[in-house]
């Protein structure tokens, strides 16, 4: 291994340009974090992936947890032994983990505990957008809302101290634009001393049965008030500029507005107040309101700051005009952009709208995400469709295989959240009386598919669960899943080797499924057409719950360590009759139509052979491997 990760460098006062997610890791290291758990999810994944790389060098307990609820509980358990713990996930993960998260503030932490829950305004990679800042009021969490990577570092470091002093778990909530933006970070000192590991039994303190919980409830209010007091003297509410017009901004909106103010030359005429955390201390709001008559609020999603400002003004009889979402300066939906902020600031400052020259642009082709060439999911979709047909309802789940949506696979008729394919299939099969198919990946299956499957067995639902086991959590960046072979590099498991790996991962999907009482369990390699079809036919005509496990490694991950390049394919133009079957049925990004001719881009082809099998005229054939790519 080539040296330590740059985020570990012990160079206090030095500077680094790094992503927001890595700045969070740095902040945690500077706070002496000892324990880390996570479940990956865009845009949070680099936090966990960085800890995975540095855990050994930094002497940190690390795990990719089975799901977010477990991640939070494990980290909370560690915190009760006095260590500083952190766990990370995306916003949807925190929803999933909200059961433990809602009682943790009552019980209280011992070692400081920080939960990172990355938000995704504009639904860039998520089925919904949520404003986790509401955890401050909803469940009594101090919440940090960084505008820059440097904010993220400083806030994370401070969050551990705040957590330990108030015994509250603390939420760090960056959004996509902060997580995935690079910015200058100043390196702080890495502590030599860490918390001692010590668990002192005290059930009255750690067991929230109602008698204890009632007491905890009262203590919680005190602890939350103390958090607000600490925040009031924290450096996360800076104010700059001057003038009776004020802008109050949070998150990435603060970064945009400070640039817009500079671009418009308004720095001397505007008072700019940042909100870096919640609850917003009333003293911060009042001293800001003392300086201004008119206020523009810049915050993404719900009007949380806006309502706090309005309420503080009303309660304290301050006469100010407040503009933001209610006034129509900003929308409630989606993330902001520098342009949106500039337009609102111009309107607020009484400047005219900016004229933008318009250029006539031809229609531009989109570049939507698609399954990679050689992806085993494509083959599985193809096999299942051949047997189950178009009329069957296909419930899909969260992962790369969601790309079964639409043409050409039509493999996604419903979708909701992690693990929902199996439970939705139950509901649909039970009321329609039709066998229903659920597609779910290995990581998602163990995340939250297992309880749904047990439920389906209990109800004897007529469903076929197709588990797409590619030995990895591919979509979020190749994190190991529980079926990842830990004894060997993930990618070394080829389909030719063995479908039932005896010495590989400690987990067997088949054993887990059989353990629930399901007898019809079929293990297939989707690339073996004959056995795959037999198994699917048996599943289709079966009764009750049956499971088809499709084992085949993620092709992108596999290619990294493949010893021999597989031959790539080409289309013989003399044999091809342009029937379009390959393009129509496979949606493979290696096959193009150029001036009516069907061609395979050999730089992209992975040699999976699926198109060659499909071609009725034998026009698609392997080409001799030339030079290694």
């Amino acid at each position, binding site marked *: 291994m080539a040296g330590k990760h740059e985020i570990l460098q012990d160079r206090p006062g030095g*500077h*680094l*340009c790094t992503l927001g997610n890595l700045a969070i890791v740095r902040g945690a290291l500077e706070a002496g974090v000892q324990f880390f758990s996570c479940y990956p999810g*865009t*845009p949070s994944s680099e936090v966990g992936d960085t800890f995975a790389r540095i855990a050994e060098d930094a002497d940190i307990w690390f795990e990719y947890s089975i799901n977010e609820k477990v991640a939070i509980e494990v980290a909370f358990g560690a915190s009760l032994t006095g260590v500083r713990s952190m766990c990370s996930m995306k916003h949807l993960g925190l929803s999933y983990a909200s059961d433990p998260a809602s009682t943790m503030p009552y019980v209280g932490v011992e070692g400081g505990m920080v939960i990172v829950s990355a938000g995704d305004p504009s639904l*860039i*990679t998520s089925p919904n957008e949520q404003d986790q800042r509401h955890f401050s009021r909803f469940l009594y969490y101090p919440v940090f809302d960084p*505008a*820059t990577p440097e904010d993220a570092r400083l806030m994370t470091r401070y969050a551990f101290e705040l957590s330990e002093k108030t015994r509250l778990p603390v939420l760090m909530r960056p959004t*996509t*634009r902060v997580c*995935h*933006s*690079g*910015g*200058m970070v100043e390196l702080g000192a890495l502590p030599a001393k860490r918390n001692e590991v010590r668990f002192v039994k005290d059930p009255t303190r750690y067991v929230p049965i109602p008698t204890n919980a009632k007491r905890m409830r009262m203590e919680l209010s005190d602890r939350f008030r103390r958090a607000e007091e600490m925040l009031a003297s924290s450096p996360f509410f800076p104010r700059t500029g001057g003038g009776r017009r004020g802008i109050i901004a949070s998150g990435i909106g603060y*970064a*945009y507005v*400070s*640039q*817009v103010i*500079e*671009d418009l*030359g308004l720095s001397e005429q505007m008072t700019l107040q940042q909100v870096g955390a919640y609850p917003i201390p009333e003293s911060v709001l009042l001293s800001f309101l003392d300086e201004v008559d008119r206020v523009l609020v810049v915050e993404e999603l719900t009007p949380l700051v806006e309502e706090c400002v309005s309420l503080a003004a009303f309660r304290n009889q301050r006469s100010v005009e407040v503009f933001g979402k209610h006034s129509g300066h900003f929308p409630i939906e989606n993330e902001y*952009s*520098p*342009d949106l902020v*500039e337009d609102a600031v111009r309107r607020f400052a009484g400047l005219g709208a*900016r004229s*933008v*020259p318009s*250029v*006539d*642009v*031809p*229609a*531009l*082709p*989109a*570049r*939507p*995400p*698609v399954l*990679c060439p050689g992806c085993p999911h494509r083959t599985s979709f193809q096999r299942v469709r051949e047997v189950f047909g178009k009329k069957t309802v296909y419930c899909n789940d969260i992962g790369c295989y969601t790309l079964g949506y639409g*043409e*050409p696979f039509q493999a996604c008729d419903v979708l909701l959240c992690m693990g929902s394919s199996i439970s939705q299939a139950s509901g649909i099969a039970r009321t329609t009386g039709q066998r229903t198919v659920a597609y779910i990946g290995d990581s998602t299956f163990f995340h939250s598919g297992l309880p749904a499957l047990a439920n389906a067995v209990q109800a004897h639902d007529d469903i076929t669960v197709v588990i797409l086991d590619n030995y990895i959590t591919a979509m979020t960046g190749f994190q190991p899943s529980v079926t990842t072979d830990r004894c060997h590099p993930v990618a070394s498991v080829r389909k030719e080797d063995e479908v039932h790996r005896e010495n590989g991962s400690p987990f067997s999907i088949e054993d887990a499924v059989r353990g629930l009482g399901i007898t019809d369990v079929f293990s297939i390699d989707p690339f073996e057409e004959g056995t795959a079809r037999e198994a699917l036919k048996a599943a289709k005509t079966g009764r009750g719950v049956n499971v088809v496990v499709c084992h085949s490694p993620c092709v992108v991950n596999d290619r990294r360590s493949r010893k021999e390049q597989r031959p790539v394919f080409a289309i013989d133009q003399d044999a091809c009759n342009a029937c*379009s079957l390959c*393009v*129509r049925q496979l*949606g*493979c*990004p*290696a*096959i*193009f*139509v*150029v001036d009516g001719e*069907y061609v395979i881009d050999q730089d*992209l082809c992975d040699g999976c052979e699926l198109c060659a099998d499909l071609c009725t005229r034998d026009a698609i054939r392997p080409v001799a491997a030339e030079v290694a790519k």
Partner: protein
Amino acid sequence: MTSAEGAGRSSGRRILIVGTGGQGVLTAARLLCDVFVDRGHHVVSGQLHGMAQRGGSVQSSVIVDGGISPRIGRGRADFVVGFEPVETVRALSFLSEQTVVYLNVAPVIPFVLGQQYVLKEGDGRYPDVEKLLSCVRESTPHVHTLDATEQAKASGSTKALNMVMLGCLLGSELLPVSAEQFWSFGEARLPPALRKVNHAAFYRGVEHSRSFHAGVVAS
């Protein structure tokens, strides 16, 4: 910076790099950030890769000695480095009359065009490249075009496309880091096996850029 091409900024140099997944846009942006930081500049950068993968649209911003915002506003890019014609036109709103554009004219054909063709949802053709270029030229007079994919291939590998494009940008001498400074910093950070190829590709870009800019001064 005294060049007329860069006038009208309020602060910093705002560079936008656009292309498709797999072209090396993110690596180029990362190298650029690192070299500026190494030479004592303040840098912020933004990227959006979400669900983008190989073949998806990629935009990356690098802002040198500017403020804290990682994103560039409408008409406020000082430089646009376009790895691909359609992706450059997609970024047209960032251009103003002052923007300097380096544009690779070699298209990356979106595979969905084939699907649209067989499903009769469109003619399946990539837009006319000349038309795309004229859209860019309508926005700014400072457009420098080249077939950078061909240049990369001539240097030894199409994978070196990003080095040709970086060569164009840094060969302009409009940034506070020179081409030579960049190369002496970047070479150690690139895969040793591709060092020669990258070096050749980078300096092909530099040469092109120098001849573009010499031409601008001459005319």
